[in-house]
């Protein structure tokens, strides 16, 4: 931890951003034609792809079917070349399984599952390049993919990470900032209502600072929502132009 200043005296981070500033977000919907819904997002150097299949019949044992709502099934996979050190297995390890469960919890809160009883919605997320904030990028990509698939949702789900250094809350951590070992908060927010779909925090943080960090993450998530909203509107406009309306 010696030598690397995460927040300089003038208030600049390692990559030149301000404390509450997000990385550049670029996204595209409808990347793959064969899947029901797909989306790609780049948040700085983190690149994630999300593909949605469904709603369709339950695969595997019928016993898993829920009589009153749809089953949301998520898989998180990160490519072996996504990190600096080569990963041996893309998915199936504990971290990927845990991320899959987190994604499932997040989207069960947002998707109107009562509209599709006894069916299954698959959300597959693939991380192509990991530079911090992979959970947030995955949630944002998956939101766009679910919208691309036309599955009704309560609201967008926008996620962002936040940290705490030198009394200041940082939004949208990069890999360097995450690896430095400070407290990290991952937040998934439904922006219109302000409801929190998922909140996870690692490392020690004094409870006096929690509100400040949470506020920074919520503000960043709302900024992400602005970007995603613009992407969706642009996509709908392009699609309607192609249809000739």
């Amino acid at each position, binding site marked *: 931890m010696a030598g690397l200043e995460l927040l300089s005296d003038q208030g600049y981070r390692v990559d030149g951003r301000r404390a509450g500033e997000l990385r550049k977000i*670029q996204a*595209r919907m409808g*990347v*793959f*034609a*064969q*899947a029901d819904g*797909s989306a*790609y997002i*780049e948040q700085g*150097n983190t*690149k994630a*792809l999300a*593909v949605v*299949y469904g709603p369709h019949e339950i*695969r595997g044992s019928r016993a898993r079917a829920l009589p009153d709502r749809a089953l949301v*099934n998520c*898989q998180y*996979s990160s*490519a*072996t*070349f*996504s*990190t*600096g050190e*080569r990963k041996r297995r*893309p*998915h*199936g390890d504990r971290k990927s399984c845990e991320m899959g469960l987190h994604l499932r919890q997040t989207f069960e809160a947002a998707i109107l599952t009562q509209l599709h009883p006894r069916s299954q919605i*698959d959300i*597959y997320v*693939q991380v*192509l*390049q*990991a530079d911090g904030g992979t959970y947030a990028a995955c949630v944002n990509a998956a939101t766009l993919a679910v919208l691309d698939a036309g599955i009704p949702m309560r609201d967008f789900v926008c996620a962002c990470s936040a940290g705490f250094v030198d009394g200041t809350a940082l939004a949208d951590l990069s890999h360097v900032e995450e690896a430095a070992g400070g407290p990290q908060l991952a937040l998934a927010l439904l922006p219109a209502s302000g409801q929190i779909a998922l909140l996870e925090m690692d490392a020690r943080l004094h409870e006096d600072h929690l509100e400040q960090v949470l506020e920074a993450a919520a503000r960043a998530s709302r900024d992400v929502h602005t970007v995603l909203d613009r992407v969706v509107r642009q996509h709908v406009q392009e699609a309607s132009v192609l249809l000739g309306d």
Partner: protein
Amino acid sequence: MRPACAALKPPVQASLGPGGEHPFKTVCVLGSFRVYKVPSSDLRVDGRGCDDYRCVEVETDVVSNTSGSARVKLGHTDILVGVKAEMGTPKLEKPNEGYLEFFVDCSASAAPEFEGRGGDDLGTEIANTLYRIFNNKSSIDLKSLCISPREHCWVLYVDVLLLECGGNLFDAISIAVKAALFNTRIPRVRVLEDEEGSKDIELSDDPYDCVQLSVENVPCIVTLCKIGYRHVVDATLQEEACSLASLLVSVTSKGVVTCVRKVGKGSLDPESIFEMLETGKRVGKVLHASLQSILHKEESLGPKRQKVGFLG
């Protein structure tokens, strides 16, 4: 700016008449190429001839954490390959050479059946085929990957990620592997000997001081599917479902065959195998020529070129 043959939505209409492309032309648009021949009376569902490929889009240097990467889009088939060069010890039976390790991940985004371990079978089959086509002395100069005999060598981990499956996986994967190896930059190292005899490996200070691999002899796979009495190149998913047997031919740019494999539940006549082999060699040479020209053209644009990736 989209390339001219970006009509990757299904299916391409049969438009080889007026207003369609001129036959006999190898169209090399930035990052994509199309291999054409005079169409005979047998046209396929999408208007291609039996020896025609769909429009291929190739882009290198897509992922920055790797030593080399490439993305290939062949119709609805989408492949991403990342090559990571790491230092390791040479194998015991080949102490003067480095080696390649292949890993194929059939992502669940290609098909829901590939979730969890469902894609492992297909992945292992493709990886084993890649090992076989590279298992000869001339495909890659492995001696150039050696740093110090018996102690250090470069190991190239070639990781293939299958994102979307639209037929003709082997061809697309081999094109992507060749493009990724062309894009691979291995850092230049020097071995310094101490007075005590202990060796130290020194990495060059300049991050752009790299060695490029020669991919002249890297083979590409041409899959020929037997449908009825004819065989077709670059089958779509529907055509693959109709064919009982296929022949995988691995061809280098000079037309040398490095591996032949028959796949499928049906059987093939020995004469058809020879015919398919000849077609494979012919088509393979044209494929290599187009791919080489496109890769060189992309490289000549330099590091300032606009990277499209999945956003375009």
